[in-house]
């Protein structure tokens, strides 16, 4: 899987980012192949979320390039990257809290429609556009939120909000989905549901997954990259990563090393 350059959907080369004197990312290079589930792990503060920010366009790297499907997207703003097929979720739930679940997803579906002016339409009531409504409802069903359409997002349970967050990202129909700790703050049952959901998604879309739950990571990932102190120390198959001495030392703490 490693050698074939053409199969890499995402190619990150020498990406660095610093904040004041803090080097959050130092020359990170990473390739994600089309169709794989790629996990990104590392201790808190290792720069995982910062890397997701660079990839999604929330921030721009100080150095290095990011290529997506062969195109250099390093300087593109976030919305342009979404149009090319990069979607993301947030570590802290980031939905439209005062809109209904269906309204939330409808916004995502509507954002994809770029026919005659896209959303620059000022007259026709959007409530009557069946295509948007139906598709949004379908995405909610896909992530297991059927029946919760008219609940205001802010009053959904925490786990449900995480599911909604996934539906929002999916409804942009991405080729690459960046998931930043999709199970953060979830109970065991909720986590299990999301793991199953991601397992299911992994067959349809390329995933880059940041997660702390190691059971989930080893169960889901085709390959794992380890980030420590802003540097990428290895990318390998799960078993190899598990055995990697440097990873054990750096990531699992000095506990068993």
């Amino acid at each position, binding site marked *: 899987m490693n050698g074939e350059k053409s199969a890499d959907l995402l190619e990150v080369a020498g990406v660095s980012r610093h904040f004041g004197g803090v080097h959050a990312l130092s020359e990170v290079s990473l390739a994600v192949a089309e169709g794989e589930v790629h996990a990104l792990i590392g201790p808190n503060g290792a720069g995982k979320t910062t890397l997701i920010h660079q990839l999604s366009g929330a921030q721009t790297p100080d150095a290095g390039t990011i290529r997506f499907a062969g195109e250099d997207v390093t300087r593109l703003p976030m919305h342009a990257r979404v149009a090319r097929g990069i979607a993301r979720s947030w570590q802290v739930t*980031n939905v439209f809290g005062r809109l209904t679940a269906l309204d939330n997803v409808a916004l995502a579906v509507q954002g994809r429609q770029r026919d005659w002016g896209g959303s620059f339409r000022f007259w026709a009531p*959007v409530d009557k556009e069946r295509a948007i409504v139906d598709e949004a409802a379908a995405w909610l069903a896909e992530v297991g939120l059927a029946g919760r359409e008219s609940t205001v997002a802010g009053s959904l349970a925490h786990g449900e909000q995480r599911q909604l967050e996934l539906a929002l990202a999916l409804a942009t129909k991405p080729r690459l989905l960046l998931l930043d700790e999709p199970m953060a703050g979830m109970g065991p049952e909720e986590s299990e549901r999301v793991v199953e959901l991601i397992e299911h998604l992994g067959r349809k879309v390329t995933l880059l997954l940041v997660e702390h739950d190691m059971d989930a990571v080893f169960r889901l990932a085709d390959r794992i990259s380890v980030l420590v102190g802003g540097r990428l120390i290895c990318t390998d198959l799960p078993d190899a990563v598990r055995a990697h001495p440097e990873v054990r030392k750096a990531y699992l703490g000095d506990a068993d090393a």
Partner: protein
Amino acid sequence: MAGEGMKSALYRQSARRRGLAFAALLALAALPPLLQALGQDFYVSVAARMLIFALAATSLNFIVGFGGLVAFGHAAFFGAGAYAVAILAERGVTSAFVAWPAAAALAGGLALLIGAISLRTRGVYFIMITLAFAQMIYYLFISLKAWGGDDGLPLMARSTFGPFDLGNDATFYWVALACLAAALFLLDRIAHARFGRVLQGIRENESRMAALGYPVAAYQLACFVIGGTLAGLAGALIANHSLLASPNLLHWTQSGTLLVMVIVGGVGTLYGGFAGALTLLLLEELLTGVTVHWHAALGLLLLVVVFRAPRGVAAWLHGLFSRGGTK
């Protein structure tokens, strides 16, 4: 069932509300004959002025409340509309069908220019940069002697409007009312259309909208331009009303007054601008009759609004209604 879910919580359209709006429109339309019957002809003109300010405040509320952009330079668009009409009239263009759209277009174009630059900034800096641009327009107009300088540019007569005589205060009032009603109807449609949904999303969570693929700044700019255009129309009306394009219309305190109207009326509600303009101008009428120091009284009342009715008069009244009303 899914269709029901699509209704957004903030902007619910209902037959009852449409009925109320229609009734209010009829009542407002019946005002001139009523005042004339009472022998209070003078107040027809006062009422027309309130409607014009209601339009200006409504256009600002669309930017501030619906677009989530706190702009402090709305006087620029209001005043530019007024000057456009006066300048055209000076050159012999007196038809409302030419001059008023021209005024709106000029204000809209100005909004496009100012918005495109200002939207690079956020928050307080956006407030200040819109103020800076408005000040530029203000000083530009008062410095140019050809446009009347400090004295402003007078109009010989109100615009011609097909067969209707705008010189008649009642006719002018009805035209102003029609403009306001049309603007409210338009903004209500926009709020419920795709564009309105996007603005609502941006106001709620800007970064999330960008992550759904929306070029946020483009939508905000469009919103800014729509608000500016409507303010230009209000400006055209106010110049006709007072037969003067006054530099006072461009002054920053005018921007402040419009903003105060919006906040008093209720930020982000369709009728907030209307309610605020009405409240403020009525208070002005009432208080000037009671005390020469009516500004102080108004100030105290505004403080009461800030601390007692933080979501505006419209919401406060609504609260009173729903508490005392049915159910």
